[in-house]
């Protein structure tokens, strides 16, 4: 279903392509300053406002206007915290500020997975080996077959069901990725090696559950509010965040025109080639400024993968230049509306649940 028509680039062209993107990166880096610092602090303040006001409203019980608004505000706060604040800060996008509050190496986000896990599975593995089969575990997260190049297993027959479960429980799916339970199951990783990670995971889970599902409901009891309404509001907020992040992230690399790569193709890869792979393996979503913020600017997935450590608020401006460079080098720039892109992801999930013999056209 992939119809990309990219021009093959010679090594010299690849170098020139890489140099242009490097120069673009340098220009943006040199320009970082006050406005970027103010922006991320405003996002941080918006997160606080949404979460605290949401939690406040939930204390009014089941009264529909306050309960719904409270849950939505809390969900919005969590979305902003995970996407535009946490994800981007953990990438080190704001390290240049020297502010310990926005230091990528120590930021801990409001989600089940410990930031340390994420720094490895996402920042390192996924961003270095984007869409390389067998190296980037984010391709289907081990439960979904999205590309014909992935080996089929009977398990995938039911993948629409697995994906639905994954979407609902997305924060846990991301968290346990680092535990490599598949390797433990196959005996490639000893239990002793995984134990410290499980301990770290449990500690974070305990904190998250205590906050959302214990402390605030208990607080409600204490002040005579409806604890069940508070609990339900927290569940809904987390669910909304899970579904939204799932949708945005699956649109990042699994759309119709997204490319995958073989392990062999990345041996001795140059910087220009790495850039090219990021461009081909990522896909953008069109939308307005608010939409971009809600996706944590992952709607500019291409720019994010080319420049993961530049502040995400810069991606919109970078996108104009990246698109122009891509066109000049004869590369397809994969961009579309959220619903169009997401539909192609769903199509992949549906088609590739079946073994190759069944989804390939008879003539092939």
């Amino acid at each position, binding site marked *: 279903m992939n119809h990309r028509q990219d021009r093959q680039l010679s090594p010299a062209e690849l170098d020139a392509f890489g140099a242009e993107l490097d120069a673009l990166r340098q220009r943006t880096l040199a320009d970082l300053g*006050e406005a970027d610092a103010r922006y991320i602090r405003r996002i941080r303040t918006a997160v606080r406002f949404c979460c605290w006001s949401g939690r406040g409203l939930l204390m009014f019980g089941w009264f529909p206007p306050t309960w719904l608004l409270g849950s939505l505000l809390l969900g919005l706060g969590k979305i902003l915290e995970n996407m535009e604040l946490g994800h981007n800060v953990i990438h080190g996008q704001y390290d240049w500020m020297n502010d310990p*509050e926005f230091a990528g190496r120590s930021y801990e986000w409001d989600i089940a997975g410990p930031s340390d896990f994420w720094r490895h599975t996402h*920042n390192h593995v996924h*961003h270095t080996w984007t869409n390389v089969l067998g190296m980037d575990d984010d391709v289907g997260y081990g439960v979904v077959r999205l590309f014909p190049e992935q080996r089929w297993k009977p398990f995938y027959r039911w993948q629409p069901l697995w994906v639905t479960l994954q979407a609902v429980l997305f924060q846990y799916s991301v968290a346990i990725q680092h535990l490599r339970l598949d390797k433990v199951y196959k005996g490639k990783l000893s239990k002793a090696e995984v134990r410290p990670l499980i301990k770290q995971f449990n500690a*974070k889970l305990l904190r998250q559950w*205590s906050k959302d599902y214990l402390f605030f409901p208990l607080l409600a009891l204490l002040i005579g509010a409806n604890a069940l309404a508070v609990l339900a509001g927290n569940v809904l907020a987390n669910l909304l965040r899970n579904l939204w992040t799932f949708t945005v992230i699956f649109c990042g690399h699994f759309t119709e025109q997204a490319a995958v790569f073989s392990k062999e193709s990345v041996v001795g890869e140059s910087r220009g080639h*790495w850039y090219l792979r990021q461009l081909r393996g990522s896909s953008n979503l069109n939308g307005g400024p608010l939409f971009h913020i809600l996706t944590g600017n992952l709607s500019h997935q291409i720019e994010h993968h080319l420049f*993961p*450590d530049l502040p995400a608020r810069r991606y919109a401006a970078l996108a104009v230049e990246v698109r122009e460079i891509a066109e000049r080098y004869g590369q397809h720039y994969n961009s579309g509306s959220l619903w169009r892109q997401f539909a192609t992801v769903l199509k992949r999930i549906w088609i590739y649940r079946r073994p190759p013999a069944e989804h390939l056209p008879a003539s092939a």
Partner: protein
Amino acid sequence: MNLLPTALLPACALLLRPLRYLVARGWLRESDVDAWLRLLHPALRLNRVLARVCAREWVAEDMLALTLQPNGNWRGAQPGQHVQLYIERDGVRLSRSYSLTRVGADGRLQIAIKRQAGGRVSPYLLECLAVGEVLELGTVQGELHWPQQAPGVLLLAAGSGITPLLGLLRSALAQGFAAPVTLLHYVREQGQRAFADELQALQAQYSNFQVRWALTGAETPSAELQGRFTAEHLQGIGDVAQRAVLSCGPASFVAAVQHWWQGTGSQAELQVEAFTPPPLSVGSERREVQLSLARSRQVLSAHNQASLLEQAEAHGLRPAHGCRQGICASCTCTLVSGVVRDMRSGARLAEPGQAIRLCISAPEGDVEIEL
């Protein structure tokens, strides 16, 4: 607007302990707690040391003294030490070290800031910082201390090197140190004699204290000594070989003092403190440098041609790292001092406290990192 009176700040320290416990164990986020505390009082924080500017006083043409009132998180300091001070410019948090010229019994501190031409921090502090504003303070460091038992003390300062020595001098004289003390301060011009009025008043008040200035700049006729440090400037002091010597100033000045002191064969104590030399501009030729690791307390020999990550690994260390190409930020580490070069862009990073990536940073000179 303060919801909480400033006088109550020290009392809050105790009340904050449960919160501190929860933050340390990851149950609460420190910045969120601080956001609430800040609403109560602009200088109230959980762990961070914030200080209110109480007074500004010009003590020389190019030097301003700031009196600061730190919050309850301040752990105290000794005269002669220096404190890290943070300000934000263009979205970047910058830090500089300033010597404490006074550590008051009331908890107030005084620091003195000399204008650095072309600097990013001192011009802002001198021109823009107003009384009532709040600054963040960091760690306190410095080994200089007053030689209580010495039969006499000689203080040799150049430029802003006066600041730690003044802190020590003020507290020693106030505590009744009776042996002879001589301060010799080297400045470029007459107007740069920092704290001159106060030093002259101290000279009048304490018969054992004497102050002299030496002007190293244009040769204008004046009553002061002329030129850079030389043994002749000390001729008036009879017992100079018995005196404990404290010296502070630029690296070249301190080196000259050390050279002279070794020549005297003195058995007395010598304490020196030199400012970090300005970063040298280097070409691409290979140079040997020293790599200091602050956390593991090691000093390694390194060079400017390979990344800090590779060189640390070559010494058998195993710093956390990921992609080794500057993508993933796994090897991010704090630069304590020195200059590193971003090997991808050639950009030079010299800001103390800055986050650098070991895999793409090569040292430009001696470098200390938080590893």
